[in-house]
């Protein structure tokens, strides 16, 4: 649901009734029989341990050098990023029907625009409150009648028609993933909107840019990936990446993860690793595809932009070594407005 609410949503009051977990609980208890509501607030499901994809390395094709090497970023850091895009999500158990969990999820995305060194919100933030329920095992009609479009099925059949078993933990994980997808969709919407309207103003996007063809082709979009469960370097190249010094970048590579558009990417060391592990201050940058002769200059330019964002520090966020202050500002904004 967009920040600008639709007329229909306003009319039926669903938006208002889902503005908080307690409001959603009241609505469900009123409209759906046999719902047991959770008490005590409940921890965000994002904190629960989940089976995550194992860290791994992938060899990538070089786009700048035949062999991946370290390149000092020439010139002084230059601030040029005009905006920062990030999203947040929060899921928590709302209640149960029998043993089946109902999850309340909030996802949001915002662009924080920098004007005269001050960050302000560009346009309207996008915020969505939804309830994630295993409709294959729950009273579908009552839930759909009560929640309409604000309901998401966590037991949607796979392409082969199978549905997941009613394992409560599995259902919780599926709900959390669904909230993540909603958040990504909101981020994507805003990124596309920016690229369409402000094509000449660089925007830093938290994460990759390949999930949207439009964004992946936009020269203004700069994706910054902070997590490194997948490292696009193998063998000697991995050693080069992990040994990058402060202000150095790797050669540009070409990556095209499954289901995503092809983009150019490189690793950049933002901070010195002295006394720290090899991933400290390391980010992977993504930009749109470019002609080979221009790649080096463009990668250096964007690297200078990103090095300029090392200050101010995004502390106290634990990822402050890799996080730009503008990205933290976006997260803080959403935390303040959606919680």
């Amino acid at each position, binding site marked *: 649901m967009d920040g600008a609410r639709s007329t229909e949503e306003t009319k039926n009051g669903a938006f208002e009734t889902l503005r908080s977990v307690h409001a959603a609980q009241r609505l469900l208890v009123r409209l759906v029989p046999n719902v047991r509501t959770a008490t005590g607030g409940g921890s965000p499901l994002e904190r629960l341990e989940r089976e995550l994809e194992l860290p791994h390395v992938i060899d990538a094709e070089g786009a700048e050098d035949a062999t991946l090497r370290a390149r000092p970023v020439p010139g002084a850091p230059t601030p040029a990023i005009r905006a920062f895009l990030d999203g947040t999500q929060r899921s928590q158990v709302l209640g149960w029907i029998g043993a089946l969990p109902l999850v309340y999820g909030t996802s949001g995305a915002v662009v924080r625009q920098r004007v005269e*060194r001050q*960050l302000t919100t560009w346009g309207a933030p996008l915020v969505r409150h939804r309830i994630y329920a295993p409709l294959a095992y729950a009273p579908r009609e009552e839930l759909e009648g009560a929640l309409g479009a604000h309901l998401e099925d966590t037991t949607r059949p796979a392409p082969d028609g199978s549905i997941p078993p009613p394992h409560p933990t599995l259902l919780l994980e599926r709900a959390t993933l669904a909230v993540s997808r909603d958040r990504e969709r909101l981020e994507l919407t805003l990124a596309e909107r920016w690229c369409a309207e402000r094509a000449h103003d660089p925007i830093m996007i938290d994460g990759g840019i390949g999930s949207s063809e439009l964004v992946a082709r936009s020269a203004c979009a700069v994706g910054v990936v902070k997590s490194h469960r997948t490292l696009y370097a193998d063998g000697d190249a991995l050693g080069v990446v992990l040994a990058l010094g402060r202000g150095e970048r790797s050669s540009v590579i070409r990556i095209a993860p499954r289901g995503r558009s092809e983009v150019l990417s490189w690793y950049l060391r933002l901070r010195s690793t002295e006394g720290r592990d090899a991933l400290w201050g390391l980010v992977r940058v993504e930009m749109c595809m470019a002609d080979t002769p221009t790649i080096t200059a463009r990668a250096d330019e964007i690297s200078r932009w990103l090095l300029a964002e090392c200050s101010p520090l995004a*502390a*106290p966020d634990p990822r402050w070594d890799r996080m730009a202050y503008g990205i933290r500002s976006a997260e803080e904004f959403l935390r303040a407005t959606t919680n």
Partner: protein
Amino acid sequence: MTAPLGLVVATERTPNTPHQFQFWTAIDSPVGIGTIVRVDGRQPVDGHIPHVYGVVTEGFSYTDLASPLFDVLGHDGDPGQAAFAPTERAEVRLYVAAVLRHVPEEPLQPVPMGEVFLATEADVAIALRMDSYLREDANTGIPIGLYRSGGMDSAIYLDAEFLVGPEAAHLNITGVSGLATKTSAVEWLMASLFAHFPKSKGSVAAVCFNVKGPDLCFLDQPAELEESDRAMYETLGVPCAPFPDVRYFAPFKADNVSLNTLRSNEELLANVQPLTWGLREVLQFAEVLLNRDDVDAKADALIDFIKERVLDRDFEDRVLKQKHRVRSFADLEGWFKDLLSGMEDQGNEHWRTHHVATIRKVRNRLSNISTRCAGLVTNDGHTSDLPWGDFTDRAVYVVDVALAEEDAQDLIFARVVSKLREHLERRDLGVTHVVVFVDELNKYAPADGPDTYVRKMLLDIAERGRYLGLVLFSAQQFRSQVHRRVVGNAGTALYGRMDGDELATPGYAVLSAATRTKLATLSKGQLMVRHPHFTQPIFVSFPRPAVMRGRDGMERFPQAADVPLDVGVLRQLRRFEPSLTLAWVQDVIGLYEDEDVLRALHATLAHAPEKAGAYFKAQFRKIVGAAPAPAVARTPLRALPDDDPYAI
């Protein structure tokens, strides 16, 4: 509709209460300590949208930094790099405001969440409850200054009912010395009071004790003001002019002919009168000058006896060699001499139950008074005093005691205030209200120290004066060191720039740290005001007084040098008859002793006749010039015999 300035915020840890709330603003908002704001609630209560008025008492500013160390790290330990950071940290301006008023007043609830606006002029009037006494049909507002915020000036009014009485009364002002804030504020406020005191409430005059320097010596002379000051006068509706009716009173110097005041320049003497008292006036207040160690019950009884039975009446006694009529200190000394001599002659140790030692002690102490208060107390009994019973509406009477000895100051203060009280009780002073201005309250009404007569009088004014129309405007440097009941009874309190040590005393604990800081840095022309209608202190600006500053006055009208007797006499007489010349005075007084000249002068001044010269001359007894007597031929009673054998 003006844009909101901020939004009310509250958390569980720092909730809003009925008397305090928090709000945040944009970084560049014109809010500061002392700013008055209005909160518009969102939800109606009993059908009314609540409005809350508050004054900012504290401000906070912080960023999203968890620790200063992160900023150091972010700039690699180099402060010079801070300027290159592409983004400024998110920063909050959070203010705490103390509630001035809730509208509606009931039910009294915590301040609601809502939008915060800068108070408009109308809001300021409501917030400070001025709407209750600025009604067209009953306006008792006395302008105290301008409240300034966000480019808007609002006139702030005190309520005359609470400044001059009878609801509350008295004003006390505190501030460090040297900034002229205290004196300036009082001069300004008196001008404002005279301009706005409602006729329906009666008449008002001021008696100011000038206790130091030339501060109050030029109240009738114009000041050079800046345009901004003139604009403030116009806004506040007060004439930008010196006081039109000022009269000065000062004792003589020890020579009894030159006035003991810094306003002794001949150009300004027209409204300067000597302040001299005789024995009768002094004996009424002997208690002021004679401390308890000096005067025990026995001595007190003798002084009472003298007051009741000896003073101003023919007194005979078998011990005395002659009949006495005591009118002056000189007469009293003669009476004592005669009495003690008579007792010695008769070998008596007691006279009418009074022991000779007591009599000697009282004689000693009373005789001393004319020495200790030389210039004020006359030996010849002549009196020149304030115009008791003839006070004029909106007139200022300045009693200049700055150069007088401490004893004389105490005596003057005690007697003037007592007379004011006496006449106000009888309602025959000439005016219905008198403002008495006393500076240096630290000295006259200290919190600790001996319980002096002067302090008792100040306490009496502070506690009971308002019922009589006797109002105390007092000033001091350290409020904490003034008697609590004196400052506590002052309905209105003004604070200029304050000393840090003073602000650290418990009396200021009710003020926020930010308010105390503002008080410590107030500039000239700024005051913090507490008034019964204002539930919180308010900061105002006031214009420079339209009267000449003491320092400027001393440059323009330098103090007259000490002069010989004849010149001094001429100066005094010229006030009444300007055509008199020095030659004429020298001719008149040439044959007489100084004592006779002074007696004649004092008699003339006391009667203030139109033809002062003739009156003065008439005071001298006839002295016939010396001339050799012609030789007279004397005839013997009987002729001697020619043959007288004993003839030589």
